[in-house]
């Protein structure tokens, strides 16, 4: 199996987010970057598939120099090869990002390409399915269960209040949802081995964005509300507030 997994570096969610001087991006100076949490499920599923059916796992990330860090993380988890698609451009438009990723793997003879459900931060939740559509192969979003065989895949995807079963042939694109697996931690041995693996680099240029960030603003602060009291004694006042003031019940 020729397996590809796409990973993105994202700002650590604990971090304080500051809007940069240009008003359209966030200040990255003090930010700690991590592997997108949803991409951990993608890497794990790619590794399990290769372990079960044999094959090679290639990790690809599009971004600036520092995106090599998350490729290294995936290599430490056990992926075989890394590829950094280097660009200085902002990667805010999911369609242009997907076009660059699709160009890289279309015609490469891959069997399965794994994506996360969404990259936290921008939270588009689009790139995996965009890539599938652009190269014309089946793409399944929100995958929470997967069985891979040599001829095709079947599994489950999450919908409101339940799941849908799906099946299709290969090659295919899978965008992973939480619940699919428990991602492994990189072992010390894995981390040592990853240091020796080389990450291939390729310069790519992105087309002009069609979806354009016009501005970032801080949301209006929620006013601190009222603590109505302590314990069960405060309940009648709460119900009155919900009925008469907020009128929500």
């Amino acid at each position, binding site marked *: 199996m020729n397996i590809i997994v796409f990973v993105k570096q994202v700002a650590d969610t604990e971090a304080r987010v500051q809007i940069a001087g240009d008003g359209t991006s966030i200040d990255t100076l003090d930010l700690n970057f991590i592997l997108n949490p949803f991409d951990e499920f993608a890497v794990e599923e790619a590794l399990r598939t290769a372990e079960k059916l044999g094959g090679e796992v290639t990790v690809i990330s599009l971004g600036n120099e520092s995106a090599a860090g998350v490729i290294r993380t995936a290599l430490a988890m056990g992926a075989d090869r890394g590829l950094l698609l280097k660009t200085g451009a902002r990667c805010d438009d999911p*369609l242009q990002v997907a076009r660059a990723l699709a160009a890289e793997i279309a015609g490469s003879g891959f069997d399965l390409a794994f994506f996360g459900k969404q990259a936290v931060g921008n939270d588009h939740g689009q790139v995996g*399915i965009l890539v599938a559509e652009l190269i014309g192969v089946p*793409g399944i979003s929100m995958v929470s269960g997967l069985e891979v065989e040599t001829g095709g895949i079947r599994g489950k995807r999450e919908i409101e209040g339940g799941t*849908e079963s799906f099946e299709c042939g290969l090659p295919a694109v899978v965008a992973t949802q939480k619940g699919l697996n428990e991602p492994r931690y990189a072992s010390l041995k894995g981390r040592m081995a990853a240091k020796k693996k080389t990450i291939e680099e390729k310069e790519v240029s992105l087309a002009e*964005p069609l979806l354009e960030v016009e501005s970032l603003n801080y949301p209006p602060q*929620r006013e601190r509300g009222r603590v109505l009291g*302590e314990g069960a004694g405060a*309940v009648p006042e*709460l119900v009155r507030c919900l009925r008469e003031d*907020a009128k929500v019940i």
Partner: protein
Amino acid sequence: MSINILVIAEFHRDSGFRKSVLEALGAARRLAAGAGGGEVSAVAAAEKVGDSAADLAAYGADKVLLAERPEFAVYSPGGFAAAAAAAVKKVKPAVVLVPGTALGRDLTPRLSARLGAPAATDCVGLEQDGDRIVAVRPAYTGKVQMRVGFKGSPAIICLRPNVFLPEKEDRSRSAETVSLGLELTEKDLALRITGTEKQVSDRPDVAEADLIISGGRGMREPEGFRLLEELSSALGAGIGASRAAVDAGWRPHGDQVGQTGKSVSPSLYVACGISGAVQHLAGMIGSKCIVAINKDPEAPIFKVANYGIVGDVYQVLPALIEELKKG
């Protein structure tokens, strides 16, 4: 100036058009009014829509495009995308509004790729300057709001459920109904949905519920959620959970609210034994009214709650259930 808008109308055999579809129609009507006129079309892919098509007119559609096929009894990702793309060809909208349901979120990138047009997901606001539209969407765990513009047409805008209001139902309205001729390719049907497994529950799903009762680690044990179920039944609410409660195995993944769970915007969100970590707030900060019940008066959830009670959920919740029963 006038603007044509297309709404993706998700239809279910048993329940008809989803509430989020009516919300999208409402948003479409207001965009058309803001632009000084325009036509609102709705496209439905289904096995058979039948008389329900009149609902789309009653909530604001001027034109209804139907892609009815036997294989559309279940969701067909490629088939529905082809139907939406065919509808775009036909009505040439400047804006496509997609309800942010599971189906809508899956369809949005498919349509974007097929049309080579920009798409924004999880939109909670629309700003309009004539026919120029800017969509507002939360980003970075809700710590910022991102305003996005669209170069290229149509602008595909996927709307967060529960944020936009439907117009008032008007049964005197009617809509021209057109059948969409559709030629599906093998590729369109390569991905097959073979079945649906729904949890047997009459509770609304957390993503769409207008009232949500949510529990965290402070519920202490799975049994604790019994109380939440009782409370949610009393209100007709959906049940949510923090990641701590999901990771403990007390609730299914689908119930998780937050950055790695669902983003919700109900009228009422009751957080029980939830501390209010940023990743949890990311998913529920858009709620209109937030209630926090927590025994720690310093818990961060109180900073965003409209109403708070400091106390033990095992004392407060039974009292609350009793009080609601009094009616």
